[in-house]
């Protein structure tokens, strides 16, 4: 599904990604771990198409199609979703209205008419039940005054509504207590299928107790320096990242 080949990317002329290779197949869950500043969030933003990031070299393709020239919204239309580490507030725009706009813009890009209101309502009801979200929450302004947990749940709700092929969860666990973490992780697990794929970006192993990855990659200094299975995550949890740094620098 997602193929990244020798990806180099920079922001404001500062090289951050220095040759990433990654392949994610449908039905897979990949975890990307690494110390602060290793380029994890940059990788997420580059795949999602954030303009400030310059792709200097390499390829990103989705289902065999090069996407690095596409705008962020075009990538979204093709099924790329990113759960933000710091979801932004949009005062006066309800979660429902935001979702309606997002869904209809995506449909429009595909040459479809707006989703009929009753269908939209039905979908909202189903997805909010699936994720155990109080529907009152959906009429609140997007992320305004939301707690950390609410923000992340809202991200997962949006993921549920948009039904992406590829979901990138950028530090979804940061700022969550264990209960909120469990709820969010359960949501993601419910949305997983053999047709979609998830990339979980995290600093800590604990999220991976709930969202169990097929592969774990360690990102350091803009490169994937180690890949393995979920045992690698446990090893990192025990030993920290220093031994990785030593290995790389040796």
């Amino acid at each position, binding site marked *: 599904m997602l193929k990244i080949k020798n990806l180099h990317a920079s922001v404001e002329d500062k090289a951050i990604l220095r040759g990433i290779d990654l392949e994610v197949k449908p039905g897979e869950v990949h975890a990307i771990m690494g110390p602060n500043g290793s380029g994890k969030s940059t990788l997420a933003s580059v795949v*999602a*198409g*954030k*303009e*400030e990031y310059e792709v200097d070299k390499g390829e990103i393709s989705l289902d065999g199609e090069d996407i690095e020239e596409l*705008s*962020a*919204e075009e990538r*979204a*239309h093709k099924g790329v*979703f*990113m759960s*933000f580490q*710091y*979801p*932004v507030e*949009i*005062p*006066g*725009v309800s979660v429902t*209205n*935001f979702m*309606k*706009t*997002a*869904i*209809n*813009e*995506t449909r429009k*890009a595909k040459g479809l008419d*707006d989703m009929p209101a009753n269908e939209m309502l039905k979908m909202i009801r189903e997805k909010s039940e699936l994720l155990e979200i109080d529907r009152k929450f959906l009429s609140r*302004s*997007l992320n305004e005054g939301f707690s950390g947990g609410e923000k992340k749940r809202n991200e997962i709700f*949006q993921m549920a509504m*948009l039904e992406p092929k590829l979901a990138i969860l950028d530090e979804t666990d940061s700022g969550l207590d264990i209960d909120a973490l469990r709820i969010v992780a359960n949501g993601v697990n419910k949305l997983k299928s053999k047709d979609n794929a998830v990339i979980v970006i995290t600093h800590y192993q604990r999220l991976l107790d709930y969202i169990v990855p097929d592969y774990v990659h360690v990102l350091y200094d803009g490169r994937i320096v180690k890949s393995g299975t979920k045992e690698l995550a446990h090893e990192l949890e025990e030993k920290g990242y220093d031994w990785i740094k030593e290995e790389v620098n040796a």
Partner: protein
Amino acid sequence: MSNKYTEDDLREELKTKEYEYGFYTDIESETFPVGLNEDIVRAISKKKEEPEWMTQWRLEAFKIWKEMTEPEWANVHYEKPDFQAISYYSAPNSKPKYDSIDEVDPELLATFEKLGISLDEQKKLAGVAMDVVVDSVSVATTFKKTLAEKGIIFMSISEAIQEHPELVKKYIGTVVPQKDNFYAALNSAVFSDGSFCYIPKGVRCPMELSTYFRINQAGTGQFERTLVIADEGSYVSYLEGCTAPSRDENQLHAAVVELIALDDAEIKYSTVQNWYPGNAEGKGGVYNFVTKRGLCETNSKISWTQVETGSAVTWKYPSCVLKGDNSVGEFYSIAVTNNYQQADTGTKMIHLGKNTKSTIISKGISAGKSQNSYRGLVQISSRAENARNFSQCDSLLMGNDCGAHTFPYIEVKNKSAQIEHEATTSKIGEDQIFYCNQRGIDTEKAIALIVNGFSKEVLNKLPMEFAVEAQKLLEISLEGSVG
């Protein structure tokens, strides 16, 4: 429903960068020679077959105006109009008064169609009566009969001067006196036409009363005069919308609106202002110097709601004089400036009576190289026991070259007053845009969404049919302002 309408229409409109109503209707017009003197004032009055008292009132205003100087305190910069280079009267030639739309000049009807306000359509639109002002003279008034059954008078002010001189004479200039300010004095001397509305005691006006103003003649100033009187215990919702054709030379618009809410009456006055703002280089555009004020008697209420997207320069402070005890004044405003537009707008809430209450919600949106100022006065007089005011002024900035300014003035002479003022300034951030983009919403649409959210409290105050138009206008006005 409304959202769908907005989106589809917007896409269509975004394709053309030109001001969409920038066309010119070729209707034969009778235009006075340029310049202003006593003879011109008399001629205007004569042309309109006004009674002597009206002529004298105009002349009095002219005398006052001659002694006044154009105010310079507002946070706007422009080349002052040459008042002697303006023609002060223009009317469609054969002063048309039609019973049926078929008799109206087809060119004029085409103009309405381009404006999206075809009378046929308007007639069908339940609850909206139209008094259409094109170049100063009313050419069509609809729904007059329905209104007449309730004793409601809704006509051009020229007609009202003829048909209801006692009402006009009693109220004109009582809220905005001739000497009020430079532009009000000028308007009082030369006002061309405008609307007059009277709601009798205890009557609830069954429909929204709506007027479209429009400047059409090159180099013709537009001086509208509106007088709305809500008698005791009555209610009226009045809509005013404006569009103007594209012109290279600046056009002056100096309107006066007076509202009178007698005991227990309520007036809701909504405006969507979409005059030509000038082009992207700041050339052309309307100078909009407006005096709007309402007088509230006991237990009455006046609400001003305005969506200001047009004009090169706006100078406008719809105000309430809360004279009666327990009276309520409200001001809800969205002011959008883009490119080189300048707006200095706000309100004055003058609390005179006891237990008077006022609310001010102002939303300023600045983009391009524009300057957007909120200027407001909350004044509590010594005998206004327990007066209350809540003010909220929010500014939204787009890009780094625009400015937002807030000038709140508060004068309190009674210790029992409760005054709250909140102000925020925010910027549409790249992170907000990217967030929307990531969800499949392109930048243009994202801005529209953010701006609509920001303006929601005010948009919600507009009557439904106006809210849709207003939303669309916001989006068009900010087109191309980012990226």
